[in-house]
């Protein structure tokens, strides 16, 4: 998973291995981050130049060095994990502007993206954060497959209407949901013209199994009955410097994902990097229903020169 890592510079791997070795708060990245903050501030006071140093990433994305001897384990009780997950989850990752490019010419409806997403987000089979649709724009135009995640609009109609700030736009462009806040009015579902949002009509899948897991707003798990869910651009994976679940599980090179500020996107299948602007320019990239003024962050490359057969006419379901 390191090779398809376009976001974090070197040193990142070392940090993670180190934390694993120390056994700090197994598996919970937040403790590591908070620990790093604590240690980093402590280090500032003592200015101890001696001893082996390690690099750690602080909660605000700064890479700092601290002496190994200064690292201390933080007990779970000392730290309200959910609060910390909320804080950083609502803030987003500084300096990033995430963008996705979906190459419609490459999609053959393998649905691996959907499977990976549903597994990660504890969804039922009929619940989609991303769904691959068969599209046919007009009578004589050719049908094509169109994966449809949330478009993480820059003018999000869903965020506008939320009465309690349960869905929000972060500085890195991601639109998230806080299911500890959501009152289940479903105004956001009504407002989204792309049908990107779903609702937990019943007790979520395996809710008994996950009920003690602390709620991570960046992964929106555990899912909660009576609240909204939707595609999150895998904000939890981005924080770890990894590509989203759907992007890295596609076998056909459909997805490119990256940072608009750096103008770099990486293909989830081939790990090839490209200039975002060049990719859009060369291939006639567009956003879906942009005339609605929603400013989507998901771009499509048109389904031309396809390497797979188009969906058969008989499979096409109408718009009704």
């Amino acid at each position: 998973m390191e090779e398809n890592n376009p976001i974090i510079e070197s040193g990142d791997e070392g940090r993670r291995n180190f934390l694993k070795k120390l056994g700090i708060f197994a598996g919970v990245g937040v403790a590591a981050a908070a620990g790093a903050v604590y240690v980093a501030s402590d280090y500032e006071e003592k200015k101890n130049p001696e001893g082996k140093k390690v690099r750690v990433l602080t909660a605000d994305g700064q890479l700092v060095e601290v002496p190994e001897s200064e690292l201390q384990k933080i007990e779970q009780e000392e730290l309200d994990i959910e609060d910390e997950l909320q804080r950083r989850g609502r803030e987003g990752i500084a300096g990033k502007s995430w963008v996705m490019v979906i190459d419609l010419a490459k999609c053959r409806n393998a649905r691996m993206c959907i499977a990976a997403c549903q597994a990660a987000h504890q969804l039922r089979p009929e619940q989609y954060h991303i769904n691959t649709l068969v599209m046919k724009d007009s009578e004589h135009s050719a049908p094509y497959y169109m994966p449809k995640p949330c478009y993480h609009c820059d003018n999000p109609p869903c965020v506008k209407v939320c009465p309690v700030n349960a869905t929000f736009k972060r500085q890195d462009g991601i639109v998230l949901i806080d299911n500890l806040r959501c009152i289940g009015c479903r105004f956001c579902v009504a407002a989204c013209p792309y049908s990107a949002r779903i609702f937990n009509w019943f007790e979520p899948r395996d809710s008994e199994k996950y009920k003690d897991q602390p709620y991570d707003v960046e992964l929106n798990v555990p899912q909660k009955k009576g609240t909204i869910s939707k595609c999150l651009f895998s904000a939890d994976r981005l924080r770890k410097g990894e590509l989203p679940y759907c992007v890295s599980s596609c076998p056909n090179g459909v997805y490119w994902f990256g940072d608009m500020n750096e103008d770099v996107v990486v293909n989830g299948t081939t790990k090839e990097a490209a200039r975002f602007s060049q990719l859009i320019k060369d291939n006639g990239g567009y956003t879906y229903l942009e005339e609605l003024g929603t400013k989507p962050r998901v771009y499509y490359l048109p389904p031309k020169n396809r390497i797979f057969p188009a969906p058969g006419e008989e499979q096409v379901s109408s718009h009704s």
Partner: protein
Amino acid sequence: MDNHLSLEESRQKLTQIENDLIRPLKSHNGFEMWVLFLLLLLILGFYAYYLQLRDGLGVTALRDYVQWGMYISNFVFFVATSLIGMLITSVLGLLRIPWITPLTRIAETIALAFAMFAGIVIIIDMGRPDRFPYLFLHGRLQSPILWDVTVVTTYVIISMLLLLIPMIPDAAILRRRMTDAPKWQQAIYKFLSANWIAVPEQYALIKKSIRVLAILIIPTALAIHTVTSWLFASTLRVGWDSTIFGPYFVSGAFVSGVAVVIIAMYFFRNNYKLHNYITDAHFNRMGQLLVLMCFIYLYFNLNEYFVPAYKMRKAEGHHLEALFTGNWAGIFWATQLGGLLIPMLLLIFKPFRKPLPAFIISVFVLVGAWFKRLLIVVPTQQHPYLPIQNVPENFITYKPTGVEIMLTILPMVGVLIVITIIAKLFPIVPIWETAHEQGVDESVIK
């Protein structure tokens, strides 16, 4: 007022009016059966809500596409119907239309009951009703839901005042007359009579208060239904994305409101034997009012459906086809013709404005008004911009479940309970205003 009576005649006249209007409060003919019926429905409704709380909103037919259904239609219907208080008491009252006097309390009672339960309907629709306080703790002012909560609350308060303030002289009369009523009931009369002694200063105060409230309630009432329409119009969805939704909803509100008042008039006139107070002339007038309201609403319907249908833009075309000739056509034409156009045409002719025909026509109008809200809320969601695919069949169709129907009826039962209580504790036709109108000297009304 022009046929002013002497003090002695005034006392006699007042006593006669009191006797007529207070009598229904004392007779319990069939009352127990009615209350039993309401309680039974109430218990069924609470059981349905328990099931919904236990298993989630999935006990309804709502799914990810049709995700606002009967509950939200019901909410729109409730807010709509509550607007009648503003039309009768304020608009007609401020215009000094004389015949509304015996109808004001009916209208205000209906307004208050429907507005109160509109809020309950919304809570029934919430996925997390336990988080209702978040609306106040974490409210964001840019959400139309916050506007709705604000104006509906304001409307409930003003409507309550508009019911209670004109009740003050009547409460004083009841305090004097209902001496054999239970203690708690007498305490209510004592409290609501607010030391009424019928001096000119009190009359001046009460009339001024009513006038101020009657003016205040006009923008509030317009606001509640306009904002309710914006819950839809503020989205980018086909069928909702309309600039005329505000006046379209308000005009539709008056249709269902007038119909519900005619139904209530018919019921109270017959069951409370109020033929001398709610007369044929009142049905005639209200019938005319309903014609006017239907006509205005028809005009907005024409704009709302005909203009987009002329263009048949792609996504809108699918929506309109479903309404005109598709799976919604039956309900659509039944509502437009049976619940609006035909009632309007019939009511133009005077014989249909007699009490019984007016009552029957109003029932059709009211049922049509309810289904019209369903037609506004549901079909739009079956026609999103992107096709509905890879989901179970029941995500596309919408067939309300038993629990959902019970929970739609529950708030209606609530409305009937509130109206029943008010009409059992207080004369449904205001005594003092009626007496005043018949020339009774003001100083004896206490």
